């Protein structure tokens, strides 16, 4: 085992310990924020350096390959993004910011382990590590809101349910095959899934645990309340990182479990369609921006699923690219939320009114991110949807694509509402010529906004490098 194979994980363990140390001394949130940013920066660098590492660790339960390393890089990038847009954790009480950062690091660590896990119990453990940290982090919010506790409890209860279902499913699969290693399950599962209903049920139950992380139907119920109740920075974390981990796991499982199996594809298609439809329809009527993003994330989980169930290098590759696009667009939205609601309050459509006057950077970032989510070119959301649909049509899933497309059209409405809220101005204000106080964003935050916007546009206009990388990464599984 060389150092390089485990370097990103070591950095995260180190970060966790540092925050633990800081928590003992009641460190100031500004300091914690800076340390966190520095640590995440190092994490991105090490993840990048370790990109081409390969190897099997810990009795072959832990696989380091291009696939896992690519996802580690994505997670590191997402972690850095979340920390950057919420510098100093304004939504969390000052005296517990070190603990808060520690729990986020632990959760990230769990996810980083997760993408390398190739053994059922290891996967379960990693899943729990990442979830447990979030169970604690979600109720950590400034002020005494009832919603934050509700969010925490919902996340715990649904998490426990998901774990239970997953373990139950694992017991079926292990009972049928006698092994917990994915490398040994791989050759057995496709035939079993096709012939043995119990194996299909077991596999679906295992996948349910991952659906919970991804917020895919039927494990999506926690999403809106948790999004609404948690602090803005926590929500940004919950909305991005666990989903990257979930996509990695789903791809790994689908690659080794015979995704071509008719039954499995059929069930997953149903989940995808329900997820998209429910998410989009419910998002239409939301007034709280975070709740809206929660329902939209349920819908996006459906689109990702369309890519995943299309299997093959095209399908999996498109899913990886999709989750990358989703990551940057979500970061764009939460960047705006965190800046417009600096005290950590929840943001509604009214709070966005006249945003372009107060800060053109914020308004434009939101517009680009929202248009991207709706799939309008040239933002990254267009090529991601395009590739997912191409993969699905390539497999002959026409009806699925048509349903997805109808959903994309529905979603345009509420994303447009976001843009409209940012750019519209109430008539009375227009006529009275009232001057809005401008947001004092500061140079680093302005730069971050411009950077996120640039990434959303550039990765949409020039998708080649990312798609090539995604296809290469999933290539090791096929």
């Amino acid at each position: 085992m060389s150092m390089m194979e485990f370097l990103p994980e070591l950095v995260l363990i180190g970060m966790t310990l540092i925050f633990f140390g800081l928590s003992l001394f009641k460190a100031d949130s500004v300091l914690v924020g800076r340390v966190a940013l520095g640590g995440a920066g190092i994490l991105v660098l090490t993840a990048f350096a370790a990109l081409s590492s390969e190897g099997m660790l810990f009795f072959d339960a832990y696989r380091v390959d291009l696939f896992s390393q690519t996802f580690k890089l994505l997670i590191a990038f997402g972690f850095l993004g979340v920390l950057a847009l919420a510098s100093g954790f304004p939504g969390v009480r000052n005296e517990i910011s070190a603990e808060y950062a520690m729990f986020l690091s632990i959760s990230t660590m769990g996810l980083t382990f997760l993408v390398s896990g190739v053994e059922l119990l290891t996967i379960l453990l990693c899943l729990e590590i990442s979830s447990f940290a979030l169970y604690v982090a979600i109720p950590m919010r400034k002020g005494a809101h009832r919603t934050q506790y509700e969010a925490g409890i919902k996340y715990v209860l649904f998490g426990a349910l998901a774990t239970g279902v997953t373990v139950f499913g694992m017991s079926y699969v292990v009972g049928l095959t006698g092994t917990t290693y994915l490398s040994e399950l791989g050759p057995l599962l496709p035939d079993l899934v096709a012939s043995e209903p119990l194996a299909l049920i077991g596999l679906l139950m295992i996948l349910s645990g991952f659906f919970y992380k991804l917020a895919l139907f039927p494990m999506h119920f926690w999403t809106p309340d948790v999004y609404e109740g948690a602090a803005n920075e926590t929500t940004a974390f919950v909305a991005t990182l666990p989903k990257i981990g979930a996509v990695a796991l789903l791809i790994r499982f689908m690659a080794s479990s015979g995704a071509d199996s008719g039954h499995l594809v059929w069930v997953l298609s149903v989940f995808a369609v329900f997820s998209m439809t429910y998410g989009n329809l419910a998002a239409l009527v939301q007034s709280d921006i975070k709740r809206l993003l929660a329902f939209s994330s349920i819908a996006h989980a459906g689109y990702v699923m369309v890519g995943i169930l299309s299997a093959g290098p095209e399908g999996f590759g498109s899913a990886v690219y999709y989750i990358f696009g989703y990551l940057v667009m979500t970061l764009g939205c939460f960047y705006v939320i965190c800046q417009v609601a600096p005290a950590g309050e929840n943001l509604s459509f009214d709070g966005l009114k006249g945003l372009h006057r107060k800060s053109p950077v914020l308004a434009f970032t939101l517009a680009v991110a929202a248009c991207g989510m709706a799939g309008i070119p040239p933002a990254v959301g267009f090529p991601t949807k395009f590739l997912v649909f191409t993969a699905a049509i390539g497999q002959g899933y026409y009806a699925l694509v048509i349903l997805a497309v109808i959903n994309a059209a529905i979603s345009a409405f509420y994303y447009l509402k976001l843009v409209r809220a940012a750019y519209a101005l109430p008539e009375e204000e227009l006529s009275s010529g009232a001057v809005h106080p401008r947001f004092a964003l500061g140079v680093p935050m302005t730069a971050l906004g411009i950077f996120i916007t640039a990434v959303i546009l550039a990765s949409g206009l020039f998708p080649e490098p990312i798609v090539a990388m995604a296809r290469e990464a999933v290539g090791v599984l096929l």
Partner: protein
Amino acid sequence: MTNALLYNSLGYPILSAVLLTPLAGAACCFFIRNQTVLKLWGLLVTLMTAALSLPLWTAFDRSTPAYQFVEMMEWFPSIGLSYQLGVDGISVLLVLLTTFIMPLCILCSWKSIEHRLAEFIFAILVMETAMIGVFVSMNTVLFYIFWEAMLIPMYLLIAVWGGPRKDYAAIKFFLYTFVGSIFFLVAIVALRVKTGTFFIPDLMAAEFSFGWQAWIFAGCALAFAVKIPMFPFHTWLPAAHVEAPTAGSVILASILLKMGGYGFLRFCLPMAPQATEFFAPFLIVLSLVGILYGGYLALGQSDIKKLIAYSSVGHMGFVTLGIFLLNDEGVKGAMLQMINHGITTGALFLCIGIIYERTHSREIQDNAALGMFMPVYVTFLGIFSLSSLAFPGTNSFIGEFLILMGAFRSQPLVGAIAIPGAILAAAYMLRLLQKMVWDSSDGHVHHHGEAAHGGGQGNDNDHAHGRKLWDLDLRETACLTFLVVFVFWIGLNPQPVLSVMDASVTHLLDQVAAGQGSVQALAGH
């Protein structure tokens, strides 16, 4: 494929230059603080684009149906997507129409747009790039990207600078077109999966089974039918037109509506010839309904902008009718009618904008009896109204005549049903003209007397009506004169324009006929 290929005699990437000049100009908008400089900048950029596009007219080889001025560059090789631009006889005129209309859109907003000017100029210039992009794209994805990219600036034009119900109109416009075009995306993806290419000329040459063609046709046609718009997908149009600022209405009428017709000619006819033949009767019926229904509704409008908007539904009905007649006269007439409608209806919207700036009303009654105060204005209004109702000697006459000739040649009954549409157009346009210029009926004696009184004082202000009227200034006269030139030039000498599209239309109809031939061969087996 090498990384960059130019197939043109000019030796420089003219299409990229035309495409990207407005975009580059748009990027500079936010660095200009002075309002007048901003307007001048917008005008300069659009005029430069128009000047850059001139060689497309002069250097265009009229003898070939092939794509010309082609540029290719690798872009997204892993899915086989390239940056491919080119124009043929069908698209080149529309590119020119776009580049020549856009300076007028800046000019007509000179006084009416005061707030958020930088964003306005930005939206107009981005819009120009997107529209040109649609006409010069040689691959489906690029086409779709520009097609969708048009929605945002147009949405903003309506939603930010529009009238009182701008929100409703903007959302309706966006959703209708977005929903329509997203099925087009499925068709594009399906075509790619089936043939492995996004390249339009390859797709035109590909052969598909009838069932496959029917799906492709349906997916594409929905997008184009919404955009053009055909009955019954037209309901977004009056709302969008009425609420949009003058520049937005001009862009909508002159160029945006042409996208649908262009799409039919570019995608449906060559790629799905058998399906086209199969669906043509349905589309002809819808076109006829559009012609009659649009004309009928126009007849009943009291709002000038709504009247012109509904007349557009009728005019576009003629365009789709011409296209789906699938004969030489019909298609050429439809092509010409698209250009004509761009000129004439664009001009009519300019006229409405001009009068709205003065009276702040679009009601016909509020703008009656202008002949006394604004002689220059009513002269222009008269010319464009006559052009709109296809008066001989004007541009629309040639187009409508060709379409009706095509109809009578292949399906006399269709022609017979379309004729009342032309008569309706005469009725509503003459009614409009009569009220706006003379207003001698309706028992408005009281008003008439007072108006005369105002005029008798040698004062151009029609105080009795609360209107401040003054005749056209130099800027407005220049805009309208520019369009009048085209009205008569095409009206009296259509040959130069027809010759540009000649080879391409003939080739297109050959393709359709070959496709139909294979249907008959199939039936024969």
